[in-house]
């Protein structure tokens, strides 16, 4: 029987191909995601192994703050270098720095992307422990010279002797390029840009005189790395607060930190690949259900000649396993291509992630094939059981293919899901946990999917009404065909439904967030212009520039806002840093209690909800530990409604510390009689000298801040695109099978005078009605979900729901087009129906 099943499976190549297609698409995203993750992980593995290859020990400060987006560590005093060099077993040691420095191109624009690989400033040294190898020219010496990594030099078309402008903590300066260097054997690690100086210049320009980020140490080979680290540790002064790691440890730690950050991305991608797989499941299930129905006679014949129920069921399961294996293997192959497409997509929206080569783990292959095969087999179980139940007599009689089963049980189950979902949603609207919201959304989706077959008929009839009006009897048949098998229509439309619901709710969410951003910036930002950089947390506009702008005669006031990582109580957030002296009337925190202009250097402001959550009323104190290890007791001086972040401190707090202070944006108000042109000219003169930052009017700034949401939305759309493709393929497959199933009917229609173009019209409109059924239910579901999510996240800062009307119209038009596209091939096939063989063969 097994061999027979196998033979029967392979004999139907068309069906095999169709079913495989669904599985290929479903599994390819999963494979693509895991290949992509593996590739970026191994890229970083290699990168850091390269970077720390010659490092035997790594000395750094013990003070750090981990914000969850990578660790920020305090600088180390240069004086420790002497101590390290004296340790027995140390052959060389050098200060290392990876601080913010941005090279300005010859066109006046900074090199590197705003959110691309980092732009670093570092130390070039002749020490054997240094990581940079001079390729041409010589090492920089003194405050006027610098060196560039080869890749950056090439990208900026800089040659030795050029003068290069670099923006860093202490502002923008001009240096003479004296050398070009390679990093080990690579031109630039990970696509980052590097501006290199001698140690004193680097410390003074990038960080703080007398300090470096860490020390790289090379042993003389007499001690193991562990012994060397131990020896250095015991020599270090306790007051310097330094620690020593082995080369292996620092490699491992850096790599795992990067991987942790990338983990968010891969989890996100995996979530979408499971959505695609879930949508694929519907298509697979649908194909098996239809083919099982179509081979009812074959199954009945097998039963009549003595096959047991189990054997008939098993034969379909065998088919599923074969198709599942085949489809998942092909899916994996397609996934390889898809992983490249993922890189391209992330690049296109500005999330540049370096990937080199292609890393394919055995485990990725195994898991893709396993998941694909299991899911296919599971999808086939119900149809297989159903075909096992076919009575042998069915072989002898004309079997009715359009079986309308009773829907009562389905309606009850669907309603139960729906009601439970609605209860959960209502609860979450009234402030229940976010998890409840998730459960509610899932239950509502499940309820709608279960109810699908019960509503598909009336909805398809309704949607088909205009078609029937416009297209006469051809349209009526499209309408009837879309409605004749409610289960099939519902299953075919389900992928469209899920895709459209997700797109709609994300669009609604994005529209609401945009509205919220506009309102929030609109109410906090009272000035005329904003100068901003898009690199929160790493570098930005040195605060000295802010003060320079403030001094301009055209400018009334300029105030900067920056962010700095710190430990506050038991959290490690980015703390908002502003200047209370200039912020008044320009950057309004929307205070609930207290005055932002009164904020002193020993005080902190809290977001209202945070203050309640952490039980920190006004007057209480909270412990704040800065990156440099300084621990402060700050007094809560007020609460505010809304800002970037839950904690705000005065920039005075950092005066005289080693903490580099940058502003992410500067708000500017001009004096009364200055023209727009003159104001821009004056401010640009300073920002152009800086080389970084975008100057925008208030309206432009609000627009561009709100538009940042579009980047996120574009990513979501990109990831959902594959689900849309699967939905289209699902419709194609169903239509092909339906056309095959109705060949008698089509043959008859052709015989009594239906033209080929009428046949095409008939199939096309059936497809459009099916697709629109999915889209309409999806839009309704998506908007409901969107509303609920927006309302329940209200506390987190999103208030008021914005209905994305234009997007909804676009989605509906898109679904219409999907219907038309999906019908092209099946409609063509339908016109090829042989009249004689479909009619005369009795």
């Amino acid at each position, binding site marked *: 029987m097994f061999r027979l099943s196998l033979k029967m499976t392979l004999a139907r190549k068309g069906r095999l191909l169709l079913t495989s297609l669904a599985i290929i698409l479903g599994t390819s995203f999963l494979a693509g995601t895991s290949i992509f993750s593996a590739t970026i992980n191994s890229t970083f593995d290699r990168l850091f192994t390269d970077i720390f290859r010659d490092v035997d020990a790594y000395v750094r400060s013990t003070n750090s703050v981990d914000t969850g987006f990578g660790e920020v560590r305090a600088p180390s005093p240069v004086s420790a270098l002497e101590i390290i060099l004296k340790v027995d077993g140390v052959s060389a040691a050098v200060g290392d720095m990876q601080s913010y420095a941005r090279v300005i191109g010859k066109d006046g624009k900074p090199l590197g992307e705003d959110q691309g690989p980092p732009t670093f400033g570092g130390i070039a040294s002749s020490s054997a422990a240094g990581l940079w190898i001079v390729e041409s020219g010589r090492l920089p010496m003194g405050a006027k010279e610098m060196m560039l990594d080869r890749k950056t030099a090439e990208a900026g078309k800089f040659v030795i002797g050029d003068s290069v402008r670099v923006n860093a903590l202490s502002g923008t300066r001009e240096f003479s390029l004296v050398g070009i260097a390679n990093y080990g054997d690579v031109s630039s690690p990970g696509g980052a840009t590097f501006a290199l100086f001698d140690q004193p210049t680097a410390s003074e320009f990038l960080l703080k005189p007398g300090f470096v980020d860490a020390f790289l140490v090379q042993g003389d080979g007499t001690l193991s790395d562990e012994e060397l680290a131990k020896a250095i540790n015991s020599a270090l002064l306790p007051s310097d607060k330094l620690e020593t790691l082995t080369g292996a440890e620092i490699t491992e730690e850096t790599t795992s930190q990067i991987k942790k950050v990338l983990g968010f991305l891969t989890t996100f991608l995996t979530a979408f690949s499971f959505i695609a797989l879930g949508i694929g499941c519907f298509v697979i299930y649908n194909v098996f259900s239809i083919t099982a129905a179509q081979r009812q006679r074959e199954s009945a014949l097998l039963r009549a000649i003595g096959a047991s129920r189990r054997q008939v069921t098993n034969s379909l399961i065998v088919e599923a396993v074969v198709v599942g294996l085949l489809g998942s293997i092909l899916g994996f192959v397609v996934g390889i291509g898809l992983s490249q497409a993922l890189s391209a997509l992330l690049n296109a929206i500005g999330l540049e992630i370096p990937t080199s080569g292609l890393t394919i783990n055995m485990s990725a292959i195994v898991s893709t094939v396993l998941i694909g095969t299991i899911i296919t087999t599971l999808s086939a179980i119900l149809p297989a059981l159903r075909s096992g139940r076919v009575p042998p007599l069915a072989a002898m009689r004309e079997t009715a293919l359009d079986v309308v089963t009773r829907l009562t049980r389905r309606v009850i189950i669907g309603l139960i899901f729906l009601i439970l979902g609605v209860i959960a949603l209502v609860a979450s609207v009234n402030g229940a946990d976010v998890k409840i919201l998730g459960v509610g959304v899932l239950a509502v989706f499940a309820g709608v999917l279960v109810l699908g077959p019960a509503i598909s008929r009336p909805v398809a009839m309704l949607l088909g009404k205009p078609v029937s009006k416009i297209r006469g009897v051809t349209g009526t048949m499209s309408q009837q065909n879309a409605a004749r098998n409610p289960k099939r229509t519902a299953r075919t439309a389900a992928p469209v439904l899920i895709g459209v619901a997700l797109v709609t709710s994300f669009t609604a969410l994005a529209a609401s967030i945009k509205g919220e951003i506009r309102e929030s910036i609109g109410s906090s930002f009272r000035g005329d212009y904003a100068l901003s950089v898009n690199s929160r947390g790493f570098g930005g506009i040195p605060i000295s520039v802010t003060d320079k702008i403030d001094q301009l005669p055209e400018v009334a006031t300029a105030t900067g806002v920056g962010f700095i990582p710190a430990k506050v109580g038991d959290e490690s957030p980015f703390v908002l840093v502003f200047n209370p002296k200039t912020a008044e009337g320009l950057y309004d925190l929307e205070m609930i209690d207290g005055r932002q202009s009164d904020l002193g250097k020993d005080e902190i402001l809290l977001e209202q909800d945070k203050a309640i959550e952490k039980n920190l009323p006004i007057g209480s104190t909270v412990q704040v530990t800065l990156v440099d290890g300084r621990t402060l007791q700050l007094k809560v001086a007020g609460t505010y409604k809304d800002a970037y972040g839950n904690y705000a401190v005065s920039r005075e707090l950092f005066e005289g510390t080693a903490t580099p202070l940058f502003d992410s944006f500067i708000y500017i108000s001009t004096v009364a009689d200055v023209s727009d042109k003159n104001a821009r000219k004056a401010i640009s003169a300073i920002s152009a000298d800086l080389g970084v930052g975008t100057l925008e009017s208030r309206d432009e700034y609000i627009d561009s801040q709100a538009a940042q949401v579009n980047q996120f939305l574009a990513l979501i759309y990109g990831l959902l695109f594959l689900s849309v493709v699967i939905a289209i393929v699902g419709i194609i497959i169903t239509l092909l099978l339906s056309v095959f199933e109705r060949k008698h009917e089509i043959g*008859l229609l052709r*015989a*009594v005078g*239906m033209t080929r173009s009428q046949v095409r019209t008939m199939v096309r409109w059936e497809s459009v009605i099916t697709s629109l059924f999915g889209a309409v239910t999806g839009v309704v579901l998506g908007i409901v979900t969107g509303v609920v999510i927006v309302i329940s996240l209200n506390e987190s800062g999103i208030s008021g729901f914005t209905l994305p009307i234009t997007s909804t119209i676009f989605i509906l038009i898109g679904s219409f087009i999907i219907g038309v596209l999906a019908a092209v091939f099946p409609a063509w096939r339908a016109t090829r129906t042989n009249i004689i063989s479909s*009619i005369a063969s009795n």
Partner: protein
Amino acid sequence: MNSTNIAARAESASKIYGSGENEVRALDNVSVSFERGKFSAIMGPSGSGKSTLMHCVAGLDALTSGKVFIGETDLSELSDKEITKLRREKVGFVFQSFNLIPTLNAYENITLPLSLGKKLGDEAWIKQVIDTISLNDRLNHRPSELSGGQQQRVAVARALATQPEIIFADEPTGNLDSKSGSDILKFMRRAVTDLKQTIVMVTHDAVSASYADHIVFLADGKIAGEMTQPTPDKVLDYLKHLGE
């Protein structure tokens, strides 16, 4: 012969399937005409080519060589679209099974060829046809709600609805019990006698054939003989000779 009296004819019609050793001559140089206003039958054993002849004359299938005419129209000169239009307007069909579109009700099935051509048709005529098949009370029913005999009556009504030049019926009673079968044959007879229609019926049943005015016998793809004014006994008798 006066060609205006001929509803359809075949001239030296051959239909060959396969080639070389596998060659099958389903029709071998057949020339035949079907008179206007008459009920003709094509008889012959299985594999005699009777269905192929009907399919080719009706424009459902193309000949390998020879010509077929509906009225004065040479089908070999028409494109697929033109043949489709011709079938829709000038030819009616009744098949053994799969005659009706399951998603349309009886009335919609009857007027289907007219609707496909975006024509309203002659309402009085359609009413007369429906009266003749006496299915007035079932017009809103779907085919699945009709008996086999009722379905075939709807099919006959559909074939008549456009007042075609000629109606082809392929074993129209093949799937029916004898009562329903004779009902259908009586309707077809009346359509010819009272409504002045032209019908060509393919059958292997002598009783059915005896309803016709004229029988063409086919064997091995060739005309084996013709008979006018048949009775069941005459037909059976003839078939016996044919078999010898």
